[in-house]
């Protein structure tokens, strides 16, 4: 187990710079997810920690040792790949024991470590099978077993669940989390799925276009997104974002397109006339006669809740979730008001204290 420090790291492929100075501190035993859309540099960063990619500038330290020039096999990390990268010509047992064999670990000890990992992951009956004879979820577990057997300082996961179907993904998500709670090994987990990030991590790093947008605990990111990108990326369905400005007499309010007005509840953070973006989470909208009008276009009952997709008079889409059941009809106009709002600067996208 070890801490990992990423200090002002840059990465260029040829003349294209894809990481523009990333700094992340990961504490010993922490489960950190790197999340962001495709091409944001999260996988590259993970591969740099693993040593599969060089570091153009900056430094990465594992357990307080700078590893920029340390060979991958000397870094004492284990990685689980997106496509599992199991050796097809080796049985599950051989796959898991491969790194021990290379290190000339004694047969008895190697067997014992493999058996223990197999037990943790319920792979014992599959030890003599070849990867081709396994299902996707089993292969995933073998890949994790291969990592566990080595007892590394850091686990790296590179989108390990993206090749699994939805149900299995939820199950494996829980297994990985449980595994981490059991082993307490520092884990860095890359995903583009914000739900995975939210559910598993102690700490989330949101990346976008080669920079870190925000680092924080899952609920911190959810409750106080630093900027518009994090606000729209974290949360599903995504936060509603309405463009407008601050105005109104007396108590300042948000004035949006189509003449809608949302009171700021006294939280005033910018001068009248400032261009802002108002953010409202779908579950924070409620029916209220004093709210702004929304014309429903689609009603989606999921059983536990009802989701409506509607349009404001200004033509902006709004999604709202209701825990209690309502008989909504498409075409119907409802009035919605917000419990909790977020305000962002319309030009920079930064959060305005609210």
């Amino acid at each position: 187990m070890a801490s990992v420090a990423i200090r002002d790291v840059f990465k260029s492929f040829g003349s294209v710079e894809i990481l523009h100075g990333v700094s992340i501190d990961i504490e010993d035993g922490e489960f950190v997810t790197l999340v962001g859309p495709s091409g944001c540099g999260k996988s590259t960063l993970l591969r740099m920690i693993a040593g599969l990619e060089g570091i153009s500038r900056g430094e990465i330290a594992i357990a307080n040792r700078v590893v920029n020039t340390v060979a991958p096999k000397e870094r004492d990390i284990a990685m689980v790949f997106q496509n599992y990268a199991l050796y097809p010509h080796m049985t599950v047992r051989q796959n898991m024991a491969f790194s021990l064999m290379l290190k000339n670990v004694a047969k008895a000890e190697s067997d014992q470590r493999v058996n223990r990992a197999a037990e943790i992951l319920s792979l014992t009956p599959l030890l003599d099978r070849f990867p081709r004879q396994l299902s996707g979820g089993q292969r995933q577990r073998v890949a994790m077993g291969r990592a566990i057997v080595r007892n590394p300082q850091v686990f790296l996961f590179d989108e390990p669940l993206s090749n699994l179907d939805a149900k299995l993904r939820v199950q494996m998500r829980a297994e990985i989390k449980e595994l981490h709670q059991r082993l307490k090994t520092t884990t860095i987990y890359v995903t583009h799925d914000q739900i995975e990030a939210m559910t598993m991590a102690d700490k989330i790093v949101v990346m976008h276009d080669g920079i870190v947008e925000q680092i924080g605990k899952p609920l911190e990111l959810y409750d106080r997104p630093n900027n518009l990108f994090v606000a729209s990326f974290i949360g599903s369905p995504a936060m509603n974002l309405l463009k407008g400005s601050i105005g109104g007499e007396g108590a300042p309010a948000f004035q949006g397109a189509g003449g809608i007005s949302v009171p700021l509840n006294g939280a005033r953070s910018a001068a009248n006339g400032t261009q802002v973006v108002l953010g409202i989470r779908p579950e924070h909208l409620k029916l209220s006669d004093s709210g702004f009008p929304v014309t429903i276009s689609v009603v989606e009952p999921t059983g536990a809740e009802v989701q409506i997709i509607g349009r404001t008079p200004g033509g902006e889409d709004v999604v709202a979730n209701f825990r209690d059941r309502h008989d909504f009809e498409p075409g119907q106009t409802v009035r919605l008001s917000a419990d909790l709002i977020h305000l962002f600067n319309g030009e920079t996208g930064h959060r305005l204290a609210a």
Partner: protein
Amino acid sequence: MASITTSEAPRASVLSSLTESRGFLSAWFMLPSAVLLLVFLTYPLGLGVWLGFTDTRVGRAGIFIGLENYQYLWDDSIFWLSVFNTLLYTISASILKFVLGLWLALILNENLPLKSFFRAIVLLPWVVPTVLSAIAFWWIFDSQFSIISWALMELGLIDHRINFLGDPTNARASVIAANVWRGIPFVAITLLAGLQTIPQSLYEAATLDGAGRWQLFRYVTLPLLTPIIAITMTFSVLFTFTDFQLIYVLTRGGPVNATHLMATLSFQRGISGGQLGEGAAIAVAMIPFLLAAILFSYFGLQRRKWQQGGGD
């Protein structure tokens, strides 16, 4: 309704059931290639086997003489020399082609500058007609004008010209060298294709598992390449075993039959010598060796348990 039937109806249904029958359709579609195979492969092969049991000569139809040709060959030392030569030629050339071809494939699989240019260049010996490259080698191995002899003499390494094709040992080495030169591209390019099917992530995983360069080759590349190696080397062995053109242009089997292969001996006895029956018998004698090579590759190398699919 069932009672009103016309005589047309059953005929139409026979036709439509024929065109809808998978068996009939597949037979119909396979017919053209089946005819080609029968006329150009099965018939000549069958004729060759038959000729081996006759005393046919050029210009005279033979009669069936049973195993007489084979009995004669059994006691013929030149035939046994050609068998030895063929095995020596095939085994040494194949081993060299495999080692050098694999090496070349590994080099070409690296990120070299001008990668596609080198890959194209490598194919050249394979593209050039065999006779043309054989003539070039004939010139290179010429006892008077050999560029190798000349270069070595200019360098002061030897004091007289090398008798490449006149000395039995030299001649064998020379034809093997020419065959290796010609055969490497096939092996290298096929193995290169095989190398490119190995996922990069396996190398990365093995690197993280602590494998060095040799261990990557030993535990990842080689086992995953085995199926391709088996197929490539089977073909390479078959091509080499049945080689004719190179030998015929370079040495015609000489000196003193030292480079006579079964194929060239068969041609010499059957066509040049006119003993069609005997020539055919020599050619037929190659079949067991070729079958053995195929069976060895099929059972020994190609079928790997890990390759076979099958879930739970």
